[in-house]
């Protein structure tokens, strides 16, 4: 090819194109977009979960679940319950708050979470003044 610069350019360009094809195949995105249904972990049928609180002394009680309106009792109650529709397969965490500020000493609040008449969680939280914590419902 000596003496033919144009031919040399063409040969080099051809070689580059040939090299580029496998590189393009190796590095291109698959363009696969995960379907929205992939979020099935968090969707699924909604069922009612009943959260029942029983306090050791008169208190103001409330229950919070992500993405829902909090449910609150009035002052000075010993029992309170609220119902939240949540995913059957991946229920949200349940945040509980009990204000015993009118009481002295240790206080407790029992938290029971039921679904379809079956108790999924039964926990007792202890503290002084304000008792608050989160009850985690394991994925059934």
């Amino acid at each position, binding site marked *: 090819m000596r003496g033919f610069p144009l031919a040399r350019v063409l040969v080099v360009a051809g070689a580059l194109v040939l090299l580029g094809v496998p590189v393009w195949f*190796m590095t291109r995105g698959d363009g696969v977009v995960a379907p929205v249904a992939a979020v099935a*972990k968090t969707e699924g049928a909604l069922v009612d979960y009943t959260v029942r609180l029983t306090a050791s002394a008169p208190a103001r009680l409330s229950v919070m679940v992500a993405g829902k309106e909090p449910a609150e009792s009035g002052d000075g109650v010993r029992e309170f319950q609220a119902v939240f529709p949540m995913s059957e397969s991946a229920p*949200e965490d*349940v945040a509980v708050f009990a204000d015993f500020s009118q009481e002295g000493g240790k206080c407790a609040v029992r938290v029971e979470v039921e679904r379809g008449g079956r108790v999924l969680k039964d926990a007792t939280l202890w503290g002084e003044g304000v008792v608050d914590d*989160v009850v985690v419902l394991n994925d059934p």
Partner: protein
Amino acid sequence: MMRSGQVGAVKHIFSIAAALALAAGPLRAEPVRVASLSTVMADFARDIGGDRVEVVEIVEPGVDPHAFEPSPGDYRAVAGARILLANGMGFEGYLDKMRQAVAKDGVEVVVAGDVVEPIEAEQACDAHGHDHSHHHHGSLDPHWWHSIGNARLVAAQIRDAFVEADPAGKAEYEANAAKLDGRLAGLAKWVRKQVAQLPKASRVLVTSHDALGYFAKDHGFEVMAVQGISTEEQPSSRRVQELIGEIRGKGVKAIFAENIENPKVLSEITAETGAKPGGVLYADGLGTGNAGTYEGMMRSNVNTIVGALR
């Protein structure tokens, strides 16, 4: 024979010396020298050891521990210590070499990996097909401190090591460790309350590298990391494209950068997916300022995550 005047002078000198000694307080032994390869363990060591220990941080906050290689001076500092604190589980690729190098100096090596409940680092190592030639990790995820339960176990481990090295300080170490444990229990509750604000559907962490597996396990998050468990390799363009597809498919709201990372790739992914930058997370240890303590680092991370994904 001394005369009565000389005897009186000697008595006088002794009484002054005794008074000075009393004024100076009880004599305290040299502090226990502790070298740390972990910023988190160094923080616990300072809390538990108080004035009885002197902590030398070999790996300092803000340094990428995946890329860290100890200098000869670091080896000398470790050799001069009584105790060496390390994460283990492959986090410090040089640990075995260092352990051998300082064995003759009688340094006790306290490895967090011996007491924590480890999780596998499957996603990072197997699914993405990374080149492992420069990784300093095994098959376990070494970022144990993102689980506060693990942090409490390691704090107890450090307390026990201090008591063994310095039995005279037992009561002090135990009291300090109990205070720390109480604070960690409070921190765990605070984290639970913060995370409870996030619906399960929102609990997806897109991060630079796969360091938040323990946090994810404790609080029901899914981790989608650009890199594997080490910060050292860049992701392939195929991996980036896959991730973009997954992020779009799951409707992920925010993508998080790390304090010691180059966020270039994350910026590209953010631009491609329309997710917002979620802020900076402290993934590989403590940071500076408010994130300069374990509690501060955890609060900063949780505030960033919950604020961005809520």
